[in-house]
């Protein structure tokens, strides 16, 4: 083991490149690890305007040319990008004179780079499985999906330990790839409460006026507009909520279901009640989360549910579907409302209850905020991750690779 302990992380996204949840996860994890004395090198994809190498909050960030090789489709692009990531990372390891103790890959998107480097340098590989193809698609239907699933299986096979961010994901990954129990580790995802603490909610009134009428409550959805996120369940719950409360539904995010959802809203003649915002900048999102009367996470498949945690950190009461990681984050009637998954009636019941009952709303939002601060703190998570690195390196030191 080098001193300090040194890890090289692979992630296809890192700020300012943000596509999904992996980018903020790797950002906060690497930063917090650096703070606890771990030398962290993040190898990620390039982004217009972002430097090829920089130090961000104590973390060495390397951005590789992700389009050096053209590719006919997304999945092929992933493997082509990995070819270049692997090549550039190999050169970085050599420049560091081999001073890397552990490789840590995030999802199948960097599988082949991680696996290849593990073998050529003979260092242990860890993987964090943020999601699975079989879960995202609710089965494996096409060759692309099967190929990705098999790549994930191979990655978890090659990894020394597989990290998942909820107990649900631990059992899901174990089932999906047939892994032994002792290979899996649960370390929760974290949320950065500081950004919410620093912003004030004083100007909510003026801010709200941009999106909703004075007598309208704000119901917020943040997420991609894709099947697994259950946004269609929320859209179907809109008229049921409106029967009881006057509200504006604000939908932040984009995805392939957008047209379909717009059509449903149009056919219900509720265009004036549902506002599709697309992507919004961070400051706007923060304010929306702070000012919303309720945040809804209606996912059908949710490995973790970071958006629920963010809402809780922003002191916005949450209604979530009782599935996956969301089931673990939220205690029903204590830190949020858990609705039956894929059930617009149950979802609208929860939304309505929070919008009508002020005391209930106050009670759950305060409990939720406390829980977030205690359990989903990045410094705690970094410490747990560091301990896993140490455990792996201890086992590795006994192997003939050491």
């Amino acid at each position, binding site marked *: 083991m080098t001193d300090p302990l040194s890890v090289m992380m692979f992630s296809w996204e890192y700020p300012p490149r943000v596509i999904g949840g992996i980018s903020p996860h790797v950002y906060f994890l690497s930063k917090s690890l650096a703070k606890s004395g771990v030398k962290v090198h993040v190898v990620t994809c390039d982004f217009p305007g972002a430097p090829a190498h920089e130090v961000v909050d104590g973390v060495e960030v390397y951005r590789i040319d992700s389009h*050096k*090789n*053209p*590719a*006919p*489709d997304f*999945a*092929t692009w992933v*493997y*082509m990008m*990995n*070819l270049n990531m*692997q*090549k*550039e990372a*190999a*050169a970085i*390891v*050599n420049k560091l004179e081999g001073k890397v103790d552990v490789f840590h890959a995030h999802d199948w998107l960097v599988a*082949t780079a991680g*696996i*290849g*480097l593990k*073998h*050529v*340098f*003979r260092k242990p590989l860890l993987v964090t499985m943020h999601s699975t193809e079989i879960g995202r698609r609710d089965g494996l239907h096409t*060759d*692309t999906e*099967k*190929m990705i699933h*098999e*790549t994930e299986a*191979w990655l978890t*096979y090659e990894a020394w330990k597989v990290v998942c961010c909820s107990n649900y994901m631990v059992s899901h990954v174990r089932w999906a790839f047939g892994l032994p129990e002792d290979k899996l580790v649960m370390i929760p995802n974290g949320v950065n409460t500081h950004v919410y603490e620093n912003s004030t909610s004083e100007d909510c009134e003026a801010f709200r006026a941009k999106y909703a009428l004075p007598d309208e409550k704000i119901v917020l959805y943040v997420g991609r507009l894709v099947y697994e996120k259950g946004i269609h369940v929320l859209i179907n719950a809109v008229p049921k909520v409106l029967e009881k409360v006057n509200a504006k539904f604000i939908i932040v995010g984009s995805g392939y279901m957008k047209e379909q959802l717009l059509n449903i809203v149009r056919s219900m003649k509720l265009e004036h009640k549902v506002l599709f915002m697309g992507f919004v900048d961070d400051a706007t999102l923060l304010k929306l989360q702070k000012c919303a009367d309720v945040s809804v996470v209606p996912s059908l498949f949710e490995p973790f549910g970071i958006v629920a945690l963010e809402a809780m950190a922003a002191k916005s009461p949450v209604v979530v579907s009782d599935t996956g990681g969301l089931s673990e984050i939220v205690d029903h009637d204590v830190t949020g409302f858990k609705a039956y998954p894929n059930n617009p009636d149950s979802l609208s019941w929860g939304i309505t209850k929070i919008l009508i009952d002020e005391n209930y709303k106050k009670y759950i939002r305060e409990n939720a905020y406390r829980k977030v601060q205690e359990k989903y703190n990045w410094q705690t998570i970094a410490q747990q991750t560091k301990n896993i690195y140490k455990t792996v390196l201890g086992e590795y030191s006994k192997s003939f690779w050491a």
Partner: protein
Amino acid sequence: MVGQLADYISALSTQLVKKKVETYVVTYNDSWTGAVEEASGVKVVRVANPVRTHIGVLTWDLTLNQEVERAAASIYYQAGKHVNLADVYDWHFIPAAVTLKNALNIPFVYSVESLEDHRSSDPNTPYSMSIKSIEWLGFYEAEKVSVKSEWMRDEIVRIYNVPKDKVTVISPSAKTWVRDVLKLYRTVAGGASK
């Protein structure tokens, strides 16, 4: 066996062993995997693709390369980190060769049997462009390029702007064939250019 390449590699590796060159062949086999030593003294490692379902040759190739790297790295470490060079045939294993060069300083010769421009009926499709980009990477990262005819050398210079003196023509039908190959290897052995 897919084309004539298998026979050629078999003949060349056998000749190399006769010349006292420690020779390992890393190749693909879907079901018969592992290391064997042939009667000729050539050591062959066969790897399969851990990912069984694919959407094209490219994804198949790019995943197989990690197994090639694993096998090659095993050879490298078992040989006391002593491998002078790799000789890579066509684009398929260029990704592995490039990683081995950048990670373990093993230089490589890129032996060209054919080019995508000649194989493909439309080399401007995104698919062929991807393969061409791997060929380009091979020419860029290789210490030397080996071809079997003057015509191929001219084509590589024409299509990829490779400096002519980087490409060596070695005819397998010439009497000096193995000697020519060894001569080329000697110029490459001793570490990748940084």
